[in-house]
């Protein structure tokens, strides 16, 4: 058995390349690399028969591959049981290879950097080795460890470590989830390191690679993502190969290599390196092809217009399907040819075929995608230009009818009655704001939002971080219920860090662009005001897009966890909402002067859309809108001339309860918990915070109502 182990941040070069022979057939290659950025690069220099590969990253995420004799079975096994501890354990204990010096070195380097996850991992390994060498009673060890972990309150791996001392118990699942936990605790860190390394890697990029690979720094992340993602897709592909292999048993060997090379896409993406002759001929090129398809997929997602990207991805999928079909056909043809030939020739044919395929498919696909991307970019630029011109051209040509209709449809939330609209129009006339002016304003505002979103998406996707984020998806499903809130908080923190990073890096740029389109103002004060409001808008929309990218795909899974956790409370509130649905406004002690005839139906309509919204920011907006519409209806329907109306918190809360019951939304508690977990701390000091707090108070109070 052969092992290759990499530690990414181990800065001291212990031994560049060291082989130790142990017993029979057991060879160990230890490689510690000082180069922080490209651990995978050097990895490729290790010659041929890597059977298992371990990548130790500062995040604590581990990546390993296994090439066994029966690839089909093992592929599944790997994907299902990505299990670090077992593997390392085997290395150090059964083979006693990773002598304690090596572990100590890892430990020291991580200790100095303060990366606890990996440090603990290393200590754990060391302890385990020692335990094997000098066995003491289990209970003693447990005590030792629990003391150790008590020192690190943030560290959530204690379960795993304790469990590891009873090897017969099946601990794989538990430790897996915990592993994920730790990676999540490092999530914020992860973002940071990613952003840092990107800057340097970008500079070193060649123009050739820039289209194939977003950045070298993210190669490892990419690869891990591919694998984690492929936990579903990979299985399907293997199942495909299953059916294939049933049909064509004679090409079994080639199939095996195929799946293997797919797995090896991890190792591929750098050109111009000495991979070793054998690999270049057999596995590597094919893996290269695969990874190109991955990067192309990734590029599609960078194209911001949703519909277009969808189309593209569809096209691509179709292409891939066609490609697969072609492959199959080719294989069938070759099968026939083979059948004609003698058995001796078969073995020679298989690699040749593969070479042909790979050589053909690789350049065609790559160049196609390149061209596509270029066209896309051009289109986008054109679109942008057109948009900029159109805003002002079109508005001049607007007919009066159109603008009138538009103003009506774009009205801010108001009471339902027609009189409101009339009032609204009156107000507008008084403030010298013609409908035309207003539409222009609105259009430009919307444009700003859209443009901002595009900018942000470009900023994110061009860095290749989105791939890293996809990993989250598989993690969510493995979360324990107790950790849901913590986990949500860590996502929130990650989003915040992203936002800050983007604002720091691109904020001024975006602001300048927007200021150009907005035009300059004469007054300094008004200019400053404009800038402030634009900054606010930029922050909001960046936040929203980030949430859309990061949280939206995960929403279903996360909210499920919340709903399971707060099932009991949800049920209580749902029941009370059902029971109280027929009660009148008096029941909630709403004062008579605040009881409108419309019974706040508009507000409850707005609130009923809460569960359908997926982003936290959207949900907060729904809450704000409902409370605004409550004020509006009170103002419109209950106010008397010459008398000012003020809705105090005491009067507002019962109205909010009434609206909640009218809207008949379900699972309020879990929604509220979801929002508290995803709430922005600075936002919670604002208006959003106030209405959200009164919202959650109303929920709490609903429980007690009978």
């Amino acid at each position: 058995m052969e092992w290759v182990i990499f530690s990414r941040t181990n800065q001291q070069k212990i031994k560049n390349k060291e082989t130790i022979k142990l017993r029979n057939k057991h060879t160990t290659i230890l490689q510690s690399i000082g180069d922080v950025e490209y651990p995978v690069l050097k990895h490729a220099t290790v010659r041929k028969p890597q059977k298992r590969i371990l990548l130790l990253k500062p995040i604590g995420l581990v990546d390993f591959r296994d090439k066994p004799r029966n690839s089909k079975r093992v592929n599944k096994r790997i994907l299902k049981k990505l299990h670090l501890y077992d593997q390392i354990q085997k290395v150090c204990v059964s083979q006693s290879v990773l002598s304690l010096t090596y572990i100590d070195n890892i430990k020291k380097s991580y200790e100095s950097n303060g990366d606890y996850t990996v440090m603990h991992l290393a200590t754990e390994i060391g302890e385990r080795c020692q335990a094997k060498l000098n066995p003491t009673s289990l209970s003693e060890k447990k005590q030792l460890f629990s003391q150790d972990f008590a020192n690190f309150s943030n560290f959530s791996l204690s379960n795993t470590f304790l469990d590891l001392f009873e090897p017969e118990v099946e601990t794989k699942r538990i430790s897996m989830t915990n592993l994920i936990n730790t990676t999540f605790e490092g999530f914020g860190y992860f973002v940071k390191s990613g952003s840092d390394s990107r800057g340097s890697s970008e500079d070193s990029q060649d123009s050739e690679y820039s289209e194939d690979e977003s950045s070298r720094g993210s190669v490892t992340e990419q690869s891990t993502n591919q694998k984690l993602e492929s936990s579903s897709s990979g299985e399907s592909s293997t199942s495909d190969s299953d059916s294939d292999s049933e049909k064509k048993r004679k090409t079994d060997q080639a199939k095996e290599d195929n799946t293997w090379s797919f797995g090896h896409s991890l190792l591929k993406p750098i050109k111009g390196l000495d991979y070793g002759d054998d690999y270049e001929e057999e596995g590597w090129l094919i893996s290269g092809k695969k990874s190109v398809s991955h990067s192309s997929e990734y590029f599609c997602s960078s194209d911001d217009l949703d519909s277009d990207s969808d189309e593209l991805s569809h096209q691509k999928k179709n292409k891939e399907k066609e490609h697969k079909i072609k492959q199959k056909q080719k294989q069938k043809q070759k099968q026939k040819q083979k059948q004609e030939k003698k058995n001796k020739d078969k073995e020679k044919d298989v690699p040749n075929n593969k070479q042909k395929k790979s050589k053909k498919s690789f350049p065609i696909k790559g160049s196609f995608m390149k061209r596509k991307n270029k066209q896309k970019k051009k289109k986008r630029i054109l679109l942008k230009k057109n948009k900029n011109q159109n805003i002002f051209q079109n508005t001049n040509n607007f007919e009066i009818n159109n603008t009138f209709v538009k103003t009506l449809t774009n009205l801010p939330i108001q009471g339902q009655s027609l009189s409101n609209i009339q009032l609204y129009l009156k107000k507008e006339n008084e403030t010298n704001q013609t409908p035309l002016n207003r539409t222009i304003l609105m259009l430009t505002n919307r444009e700003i939002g859209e443009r901002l979103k595009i900018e942000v998406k470009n900023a994110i996707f061009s860095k290749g971080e989105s791939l890293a984020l996809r990993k989250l998806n598989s993690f969510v499903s493995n979360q324990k219920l107790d950790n849901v809130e913590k986990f949500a908080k860590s996502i929130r923190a990650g989003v915040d860090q992203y936002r800050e990073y983007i604002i720091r890096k691109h904020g001024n740029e975006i602001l300048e662009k927007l200021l150009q389109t907005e035009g300059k103002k004469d007054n300094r004060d008004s200019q400053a005001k404009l800038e402030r409001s634009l900054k606010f808008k930029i922050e909001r929309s960046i936040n929203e897009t980030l949430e859309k990218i990061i949280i939206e795909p995960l929403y279903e899974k996360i909210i499920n966890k919340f709903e399971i956790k707060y099932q009991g409370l949800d049920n209580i509130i749902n029941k009370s909402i059902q029971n109280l649905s027929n009660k009148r406004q008096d029941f909630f002690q709403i004062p008579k002067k605040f009881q409108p005839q419309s019974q706040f139906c508009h507000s409850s309509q707005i609130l009923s859309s809460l569960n359908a919204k997926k982003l936290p920011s959207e949900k907060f907006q729904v809450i704000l809108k409902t409370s605004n519409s409550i004020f509006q209806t009170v103002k419109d329907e209950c106010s008397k001339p010459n008398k000012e109306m003020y809705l105090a918190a005491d009067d507002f809360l019962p109205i909010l309860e009434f609206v909640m019951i009218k809207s008949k939304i379900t699972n309020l508690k879990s929604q509220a918990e979801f929002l508290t977990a995803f709430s922005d701390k600075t936002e919670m000091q604002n208006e959003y915070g106030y209405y959200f707090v009164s919202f959650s108070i109303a929920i709490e109070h609903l429980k007690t109502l009978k």
Partner: protein
Amino acid sequence: MKKQKVVLLGKGRVGKTSIFKRFLQNEFHDNEVTTIQPQYLEKQVKVNTEKVTLSIWDTAGQERFRGLNPLFYRNSKAAIMVYDITDQESLDSLEDWLAELKNQVGHKIVLMIVGNKSDLKKKRQVSIEDAENLAKKVGAQHFCVSAKTGENIDEMFHELAKRVMKFVKENKTPLNTTKSRRNFALVNEDVETKKKKKKNNDGCC
């Protein structure tokens, strides 16, 4: 400077909302008042050329929402405790509020005790000494205001802003309250500590 959260506390019908309203009217034009909701208010106050933004939260005073009010107090830098000078009960009930507040936020908070309706001097039931004694006891400042006439309102808020400024400067580190924090606050704390750790880790990569 960041926004500083201020909560308005007091028994129901004591005149919290009208103090709020008066504070609004002194600053804004009458037309604009109608577009602003009186429950939540953000306002810049100048203190010796420096500006503080106060975000003032109106809270519910009725008994039935009493147990839920602590949600409002979180992260607040100051509290204005309002009582009615014509109602002895309202002053007595302040002590309950104070206890609750301390339970939630601890001692690190700027306190103001405000007697409302000072224009109704004939109906006065609460002696000024009582109120001032209470204020001394808890380290608060006592004011007599009238929301109706606008007496002392601006002075009160100005003093509040001053004290909040001073308070924030003295306690630049975020509030670390110990006792009965719930999930939300606890998680926040975790994030903060983590951030600190991450900052220390910068040298890694």
